[in-house]
């Protein structure tokens, strides 16, 4: 059975169309990433799915249950980490877990087990205000797991975390996936989406732009690799743009960046060109095409400063 089935989802906020005809599915045992810049419609999609917003059109089914008509039927099946959720400053992880365990009709032992599972035992009696970002996100994830969900919805779960905490959280999410949980997460972190998600749904302006595995998306977009070169004397961009496989060459600071669709041919041609003209290589980097490049190709615009600043 499909874990999450979203069909033709539409949502407006006054004159603003937040979602239009959004459709996708998530099956058990896979991680699907909703990828898009800020304001793309990721959070609106997830909030409709969680029953926090009522869609204007379309259907949402969680394990076959209509989540729009009967949100109460699906509440026990979904665990959620919300983007803007914090807890009271003075509450401790143990109190928070026990409270939400009781609200979900789970025994206190469930809360205590999650303290251990999410490595929060040492911080069990510490106020929420004193927890680090990583500890807070682990607590949020532990809270999401209280009802033993088969569907996990995570809205930008690693936002603001340091790399170590992010890796730790990724590992925990993969473990849940491997246990058969369906995971739907939103992110505007291209690298996170590329490395963590089994499938990616690219969303922009409330529409789905593309959908598939990371490799499929890159192949479909035909995004170029980049060769960044610093040489003395510096070759002209026009010379390098004419190399085999090269699409363009631009000067960036004191370097030249070659955009190529055939990295091997271009590198060979570049080596010959440099040797023939007596250019000494000072520095050279090759960057494989990324989802950001794919996004640029698919939408015709860059991902935006919010997405790229990390």
């Amino acid at each position, binding site marked *: 059975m499909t874990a999450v089935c979203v069909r033709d989802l539409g949502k407006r906020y006054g004159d603003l169309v937040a979602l239009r005809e959004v459709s996708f599915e998530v099956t058990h045992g896979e991680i699907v990433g909703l990828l898009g810049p800020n304001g793309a419609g990721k959070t609106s999609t997830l909030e409709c799915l*969680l*029953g*926090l917003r009522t869609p204007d059109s379309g259907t949402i089914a969680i394990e076959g249950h209509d989540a729009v008509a009967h949100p*109460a039927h699906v*509440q*026990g099946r*979904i665990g*959620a980490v*919300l983007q*803007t*959720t*914090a*807890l*009271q*400053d*003075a*509450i401790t992880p143990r*109190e928070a877990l*026990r*409270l*939400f365990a*009781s*609200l*979900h*009709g789970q025994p206190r032992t469930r809360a205590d087990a999650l303290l251990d599972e999410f490595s929060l035992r040492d911080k069990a009696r510490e*106020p929420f205000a004193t927890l680090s970002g990583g500890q807070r996100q682990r607590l949020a994830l532990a*809270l999401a797991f209280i009802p033993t969900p088969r569907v996990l919805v995570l809205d930008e779960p690693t936002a603001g975390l340091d790399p170590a905490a992010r890796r730790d959280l990724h590992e925990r999410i993969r473990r849940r996936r491997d246990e058969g949980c369906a995971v739907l997460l939103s992110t505007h972190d291209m690298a996170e989406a590329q490395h963590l998600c089994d499938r990616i749904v690219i969303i922009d302006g409330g529409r789905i732009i593309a959908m598939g595995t990371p490799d499929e998306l890159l192949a479909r977009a035909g995004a170029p690799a980049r060769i960044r070169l610093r040489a003395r004397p510096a070759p002209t961009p026009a010379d390098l743009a004419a190399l085999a496989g090269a699409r363009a060459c631009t000067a960036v600071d004191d370097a030249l960046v070659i955009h190529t669709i055939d990295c091997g041919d271009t590198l060979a041609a570049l080596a010959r060109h440099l040797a023939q003209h007596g250019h000494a290589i000072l520095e050279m980097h090759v960057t494989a095409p990324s989802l950001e490049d794919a996004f640029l190709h698919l939408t015709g615009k860059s991902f935006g400063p919010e997405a790229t600043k990390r």
Partner: protein
Amino acid sequence: MTTALLHHAALALRLNFRSRQAIVYGYLVPLFFLLAFGSVFRASEPPLLGQMGQLLTITILGGACFGLPTGLVAERERGVWRHFRLTPVPLPALLAGTLAARVVIVALAAAMQVALAHWIYGTPWPAHSWQLAAAFLLVCAAFLGLGLVVAALARDVPAVQAIGQCLFLPMIMIGGVGVPLVVLPEWAQRLACFMPGRYAVEVLQPCFNHPYGLRHAGLSLLMLVVIGAAAALAGGRLFQWDTGQRLRPRDFGWVGAAFAGWMVAGGVAVSAGHIGPVTLVGDAAFADIDDAAVSRITFEDLPPDDGIYAPLAPAHSTRRLTPRIQELIRHLDTWAPARTDDIGQNVRNLLCVAAIADIGQELSEADIARAVFERLRVQFDEDQLRRALAWVVLQPGAGTVVIAAPELGLRGEMSPAIVRERSTWYAKKFLGRLVGTIPDTPPDPD
């Protein structure tokens, strides 16, 4: 679900006591009001007893206007209620748990005020504890609904302060809560009819010092029910669990409905002439004294008739009276303070004559007391007198007292507190004789 809600309410209480801000607003501010009232009213007799309704109303009002909405809005801003929304427990049930926790928080503050008033100023304990508890819950219900409306109107925590003050200050200043109605001008008393604060005072205060508690507070109770029901309905409808939610134009109809309760209450009060301060004592209280109330009065603790305090001479009938006593008896026949429209107050004033003579250690103080007793028996029928004397005993702080009577030849100006104390003793001595519990001293042989 009940267990979950109890868990939620208990945790809300625990978190409240961990918050420095909540402690300041919830307990230090009520303590400040207690000390402020104490510094002004400690000389009243009994100290502060007549202001306890106001004090408790301020505490509940503070919890409703500031404590409840601040907590709700802060949790809403943090996304706590979004998280609650994802649980199987309905939000109204969780909201009810939050309100229950707030009632406990406010009740603890009120209990603290009552206890500290007793220990610091000697304020008597409430005369009707169970009625006080019921009245307290009703006032909380009425005011906490307003707190929900404030939370709905406020976009953030600072806005709670601004909106809360718009409700709190008018009720404190001209609503009969902080400044007593009796000292307010007529226009302010009329305006106060449209604010719930005065009705809260009118149901809480009699539980402290009225012999029949809430029996005469029916109209005020009704007003609070109307105001509370309107506010609770509106507050429930307007409740917002997410910062993204905004009041729509039609929602302001519910805000209007909340305050329509005030208008209805004010309109009823004005049309019923319920404008000035309610007289909690006087004819009504005196008239309602029944046999059951009289039978509860005990007489064991009275000083002896021939002692230093509250002496009472034997009956005059067979003795020769001094010219001074004879003159005093003549004056009492027409003494104005004993001829008002208020029978209970007339009796109290006459008892004050005996008390003044006693305190002033008049040479014929015992005979003056006997003259007062005779005057009472002549002027009032036995049933009236029995109930009026019982009223003085049961309600020592009620009404007014005469503290000087130079027109009767009595010297000095006495302390109101001591006049009330001695008046009560004499009331008991006279009442005991009327009901036959105390045998009257046989007349001295000539």
